C-alpha cells in the first residue's frame, strides 16, 4: 500500500498517455481520477498510521546509482513530514483532476492533459517520499519537467511555450546549486542518505571544507547551495521570474503545481533538512532574509498587476516567502503548517479564478471584468472564502498559520527574525489590499466585459464546483483542525524525528508567549488593508490612478516587477547568444580553422601552386633549367676534383 500511493498516479499517467493517441479522453479521465482517489485514500490511512500512530516506515525498492562508496537507492521514506505532504499532494491533486474534467471539456487533448497531471503527481510523490538527496533530485527534476509540459500544454501559443522553457531554464539555474549541494553533502558525509546526514550533522558543525579556493564551514556551504535549488523551485527573489509567466498554463495547473504543491517543494526540502540546517546558522539567516524580502517584494508587485492569475501568482510567491522565513527562524512546524493551509486556500483561489475565467469566455484581465457577483454567486462565495483565508481573518485557515509564523519570527529575537517580522507584517497589509482589490475589480462595479462575454456568462458545472467546495472546507477548517497537531504544545510528538530543532532555538516555544500587540498587529493590518482596498476600488474609483500618478516612479518600479526580467535579458540572455555567435565565427571559423585545417590545406595548396607554375610547358624554360643544372653540376664536380687534387 505504501508504494502504491506513489506508483498509482504513474500507472494512471502511462495509461492516459497511451490513450491520448487513440482519442479515448473519457477513459483517460476516469482512469487517472480513479488512481488518484485511491492514492488519496491510502494517503489518509498512511497519515493515520505514520503521523498519528507515530510509526515511520521505509520501503526498499531497488539499487539505483552505486559506484564505489557513492550509493543512491530507490527507497521510499514515510515519516510525519512525508505523511503531511502526501495528504496535501494527493488531496489537492485529486480535486484538480476532477475539476479539470469540467475546465478542459472543450479541449481536444484531454487525455494528454490528464496524463501530464498524473505524471506530475507521481514525481511530486517521489520527491516527498525520497530517502536520499539524489532521489529527491529525481522528483525535483520530474516535477520540473511536468511543469514544463503543462505550462506549455497549449504549445501552439507562442507565449505558452516560451514561458515553459523559461520555467525550465530558470529552475535549472537553481538546480545548478542543488547539484553542487548534493556533491558537497557527499563530500562531507560520504553519503547522501538522509539517515546518515541527520545522525552525523552535529559532528560536522565545526568542520571546514575548501570550496572554490576558500576554506568555508562545511554545512554552511552545503546548506546555501541546496537553498539555491529551493529558491529556484519555490520562486524566491532572484529566481522567481518564471512563476508569473507560468500562468500561461491552464488554470488547474496553476492551482496544483504553481500554488499548492510543486512550488512548496523548496520549503519541504528546507524542513526535511532541518537536522542539518540547524547546525548551519548562517544558512538559516540567509533563508530568513530571502524569505522576508520575497514576501514583501511579491506583495508590492501583486498589488499593481491586472491579470487575475498573475495577482494570485505573486501572492503565492509572497506566501512562500513567509514559509521560508518561518523555516529560517527554526519554526519548521509553522512553515509546514502554513504550507498545508496555503495549499487549500490558494488552490481554491486559483480554481475560483479559473471559474471566473471560464465564465467570462477566457478573459483574464481584471480591467475587463466586474459586475458579475450575482451571476456566478457560488464562485463569488468561494473567492471570498479563499481571500479571507489568505488575508488571515480569524478562524479561517490562514489566520492560524500566518499568525504563527509572524509570532515565531518575532519571538526568535534575532536581527534577521525582526527583519522578517516587519517585512511579513507589511506584506500582510498588502496581501489584504490586493486580495480585496481583486475581489472588487473582478466581481463588483460596472460590468466591463464585452457584451458577448456577458451574454454567455454562466456558473460552472458541478464537476468544477464540487472540488471548490472540498477545498473551501479545507480553507475554512484546516487551521483550527491542524493547530494543536502541527504547532500546539505537543507538536514534537506529532513530528517525531522528521523535524529537528536545537534546544536553544526557541522561536516555536516562545511564539506562544508573545506580547498581545504582536498577536493583534497582523489582524489589524489585514483589516486596514481590506478597508483601503474597499475605499480605493469601491468608493473612490479615481483614487488608484491618482495615487499611481503621484508616486509614478515607485508605481512603475512595482508594475514592472522591479525590472528583474529586463535585467536578466540584458545581463544573461542577450549576451549568451551574442557570445555564442562570436565564439563560433571568431573562435571556431577564424582562429581554429584558420590556423588549423583550412590554413594547413591553404598552405599546401599555395606551395603546390608554386610548384605547378614552374611546369609552364615552354621548352625554353626547361632548357634554361637544364642548362642551369648542368652548370651547377659541372661546377660542383670541378670543385670536388680540385679539392681531391689539392
Amino acid at each position: 500500500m505504501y508504494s502504491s500511493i506513489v506508483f498509482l498516479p504513474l500507472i494512471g499517467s502511462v495509461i492516459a498517455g497511451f490513450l491520448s493517441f487513440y482519442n479515448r479522453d473519457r477513459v483517460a479521465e476516469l482512469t487517472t481520477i480513479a488512481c488518484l482517489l485511491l492514492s488519496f485514500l491510502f494517503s489518509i490511512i498512511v497519515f493515520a498510521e505514520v503521523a498519528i500512530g507515530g510509526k515511520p516506515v521505509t520501503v526498499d525498492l531497488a539499487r539505483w546509482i552505486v559506484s564505489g562508496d557513492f550509493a543512491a537507492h530507490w527507497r521510499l521514506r514515510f515519516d510525519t513530514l512525508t505523511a503531511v505532504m502526501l495528504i496535501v499532494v494527493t488531496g489537492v491533486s485529486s480535486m484538480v483532476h476532477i475539476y479539470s474534467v469540467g475546465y478542459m471539456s472543450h479541449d481536444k487533448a484531454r487525455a494528454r492533459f490528464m496524463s501530464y497531471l498524473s505524471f506530475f503527481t507521481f514525481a511530486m510523490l517521489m520527491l516527498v517520499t525520497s530517502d536520499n538527496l539524489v532521489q529527491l533530485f529525481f522528483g525535483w527534476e520530474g516535477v520540473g519537467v511536468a511543469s514544463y509540459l503543462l505550462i506549455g500544454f497549449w504549445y501552439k501559443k507562442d507565449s505558452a511555450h516560451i514561458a515553459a522553457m523559461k520555467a525550465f531554464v530558470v529552475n535549472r539555474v537553481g538546480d545548478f546549486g542543488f547539484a553542487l549541494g548534493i556533491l558537497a553533502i557527499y563530500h562531507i558525509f560520504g553519503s547522501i542518505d538522509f539517515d546518515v546526514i541527520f545522525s552525523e550533522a552535529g559532528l560536522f558543525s565545526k568542520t571546514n571544507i575548501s570550496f572554490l579556493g576558500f576554506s568555508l564551514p562545511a554545512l554552511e556551504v552545503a546548506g546555501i547551495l541546496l537553498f539555491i535549488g529551493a529558491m529556484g523551485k519555490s520562486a524566491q527573489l532572484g529566481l522567481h521570474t518564471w512563476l508569473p509567466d507560468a500562468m500561461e498554463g491552464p488554470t488547474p495547473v496553476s492551482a496544483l503545481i504553481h500554488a499548492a504543491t510543486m512550488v512548496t517543494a523548496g520549503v519541504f526540502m528546507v524542513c526535511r533538512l532541518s537536522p542539518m540546517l540547524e547546525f548551519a546558522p548562517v544558512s538559516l539567516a540567509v533563508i530568513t532574509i530571502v524569505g522576508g524580502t520575497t514576501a514583501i517584494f511579491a506583495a508590492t508587485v501583486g498589488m499593481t498587476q491586472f491579470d487575475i492569475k498573475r495577482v494570485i501568482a505573486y501572492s503565492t510567491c509572497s506566501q512562500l516567502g513567509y514559509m521560508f522565513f518561518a523555516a529560517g527562524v527554526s519554526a519548521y512546524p509553522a512553515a509546514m503548517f502554513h504550507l498545508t493551509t496555503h495549499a487549500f486556500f490558494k488552490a481554491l483561489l486559483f480554481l475560483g479564478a479559473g471559474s471566473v475565467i471560464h465564465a467570462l469566455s477566457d478573459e483574464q484581465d481584471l480591467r475587463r471584468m466586474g459586475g458579475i457577483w450575482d451571476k456566478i454567486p457560488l464562485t463569488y462565495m468561494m473567492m471570498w472564502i479563499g481571500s479571507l483565508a489568505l488575508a488571515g481573518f480569524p478562524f479561517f485557515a490562514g489566520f492560524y498559520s500566518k499568525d504563527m509564523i509572524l509570532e515565531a519570527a518575532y519571538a526568535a529575537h534575532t536581527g534577521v527574525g525582526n527583519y522578517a517580522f516587519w517585512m511579513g507584517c507589511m506584506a500582510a497589509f498588502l496581501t489584504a489590499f490586493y486580495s480585496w482589490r481583486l475581489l472588487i475589480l473582478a466581481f463588483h462595479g460596472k460590468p466591463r466585459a464585452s457584451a458577448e462575454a456577458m451574454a454567455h456568462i454562466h456558473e460552472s458545472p458541478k464537476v468544477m464546483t464540487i472540488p471548490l467546495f472540498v477545498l473551501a472546507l479545507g480553507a475554512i477548517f484546516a487551521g483550527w483542525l491542524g493547530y494543536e497537531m502541527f504547532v500546539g504544545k505537543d507538536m514534537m510528538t506529532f513530528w517525531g524525528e522528521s523535524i529537528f530543532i536545537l534546544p536553544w532555538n526557541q522561536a516555536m516555544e516562545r511564539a506562544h508567549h508573545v506580547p498581545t500587540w504582536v498577536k493583534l498587529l497582523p489582524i489589524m493590518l489585514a483589516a486596514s488593508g481590506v478597508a483601503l482596498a474597499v475605499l480605493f476600488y469601491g468608493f473612490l474609483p479615481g483614487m488608484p490612478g491618482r495615487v499611481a500618478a503621484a508616486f509614478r516612479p515607485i508605481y512603475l518600479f512595482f508594475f514592472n516587477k522591479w525590472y528583474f526580467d529586463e535585467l536578466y535579458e540584458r545581463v544573461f540572455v542577450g549576451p549568451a547568444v551574442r557570445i555564442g555567435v562570436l565564439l563560433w565565427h571568431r573562435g571556431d571559423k577564424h582562429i581554429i580553422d584558420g590556423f588549423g585545417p583550412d590554413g594547413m590545406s591553404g598552405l599546401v595548396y599555395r606551395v603546390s601552386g608554386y610548384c605547378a607554375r614552374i611546369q609552364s610547358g615552354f621548352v625554353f624554360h626547361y632548357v634554361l633549367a637544364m642548362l642551369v643544372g648542368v652548370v651547377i653540376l659541372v661546377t660542383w664536380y670541378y670543385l670536388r676534383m680540385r679539392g681531391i687534387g689539392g
Partner: protein
Amino acid sequence: MIGAWPILSIVTFLPLFGALFLLLIRGEGEVVAQNARHVTLWVTGFTFLVSLALLIGFDPKMPGYQFEEKAEWLPGTGIGYHMGIDGISMPFVLLSTFLTPLAILASWRSIKSRVREYMIAFLVLETMMIGMFVSLDMLMFYLFFEAVLIPMFIIIGVWGGARRVYAAFKFFLYTLLGSVLMLVCILAMYIEVGTTDIPILTAYSFGVGMQTWLFLGFLASFAVKVPMWPVHTWLPDAHVEAPTAGSMILAGVLLKMGGYGFIRFSLPMFPHASEFFSPLIFAMSIIAVIYTSLVALAQSDMKKLIAYSSVAHMGFVTIGIFTLTEQGIAGAMFQMISHGLVSAALFFCVGVVYDRLHTREISAYGGVAAVMPRYAVFFMFMMLASVGLPGTSGFVGELLVLVGAWKASTWVAFFTATGLVLGATYMLWLYRRVMLGGIIHEKVHDMEPLTQREFAIFLPITVIVLWFGVYPASLLDLMVGSIQLVIDTVSSSGVSLLAQN
C-alpha cells in the same frame, strides 16, 4: 560451450563476410538495392544477437580480459593476433552491434544511389569498430583504429551533402595528423618493450620522461577523436554533411574511440603523465563544455547544434576520466554509452524531418508537434535525456562525473555543472523552435506522421535509455571490476591519487 568458440572473431568479422556476400549479388539495379538492404539488416541483426552471447557469458566478477583469443601472426616479432574484452570494452562492442542495424534501418529509404556500396561500407565500418574495441594487440588496435576512418570517409564523401568533400577531407586531415603521432609512439613502445601485446605493455612501467612524450602522442590522436576543444571543428562539418546513419554511427560509436583510448591506454600505461597533465585536460574540457554550449546556442542548423552539444557532452567524459576516481571513470563510461544512444537518436530525429522537408534549417520548421505527435514524444524524451534528466541514462553519467570532479577540485565541479544550465538552454530552445508554436510554413502541414520503420528505430533506444536511467546497475556492474583494475594500476604506480576512495 560458448567459451570454445572464437566468438570475438566471429562477432568482428561476421559483417565483413556479409560485405563479401554483397559483392556477389547480381541483378537489376533496384533488385540489388533491395537485396543489399535486407542482407545487411539480417547480417547486422545477427551480429547483434551473437554479441549478446558475450553479455550472457561475461563474468563481471572477473576484472581481467575474457573470451581471449591468441594466435601467431608475425612470429618472432612480438606482434600477434590477440583479442579479448573486459568490462570497459564490452559495453562498446554491444553499443556498436546494437546501433549498426538501427543505422541500416535509418538509411532504408533515404539512401537511393549506390545502395550496395553504401551497405558494404557500413558492414566494413562495423567490423572495424568492433575490431578496434576487442583488439589486445597494439598494432591490431592501430590498424582497426585507422581503418575505421576509411569507410566513414567514404560514407561522408560519397553519400554526404553539398559540401561533403570539404567535410570529408577536414575529417581525414584532423584524424590523420593525430594518428601519425600515435604510430610514432607505438613504435617507440615496441622498441622499448619488444612487443605490442597490450596486457604486457600495461604491466610494463615506462620511465617518467618517456611517459610524458608517449602520453602527448596518444593525446594528439585521442583528442581529435573525442573531440576535445580546440580540435573539434571537424565534427560539426562532418555531421552536417554525413547522411543520417553516418551521423548516428559517428556520434554513437566513433566519438567513443578517444575516451576508450584514454581509459585503455593513457591511464594504465602512463599514470604519471596522466596525473601530470590532468589540469590541462580539465581546462580543455571545461572550455569545451562552456564554449561549445554557447556556440550551440548560436546555431541555425539542427545537425550542427547537436554536433556541438556532442562536444560539450564529451567534455564531461574527459573530465570524468582524468579525475582518476572510480566515480569519475564509471561516470565517463556511462556517459559515453548514454551519449552513444541519445545522440544517435537525436541525429535520427533530425534525419526524420530532413527526409520530409529536405532541410536542416531550424527556421524552416516550427509547430511540427501538431502534425507528428508520436515523433514529438520521442524527440522530447531524447532531448530530456540529453539534458540529463534523472530517470534517463544521461543523468547517471553526469552525476557520477560531477562526484568525481568535486574530488579533483571544486572549481572543476563548479564549471562542469554550468553545463546543466547551458545544455538545457540550447536543447529546449531547439525543441521549441522546431516542434512548438503555430505552423508558419505551409510545407509543415504536409509532413507525414512517423512511419512504423522509424518507430521501430526509436523504440528500442528509448527503452534502453529509460532502463539505464532507472536501473543503471545493469551497466555499472559490468564495468566496476575493470575500472577498479585501472585505478589499481594507476595507484600502484605510486601516483598520489587526487583523492583516495
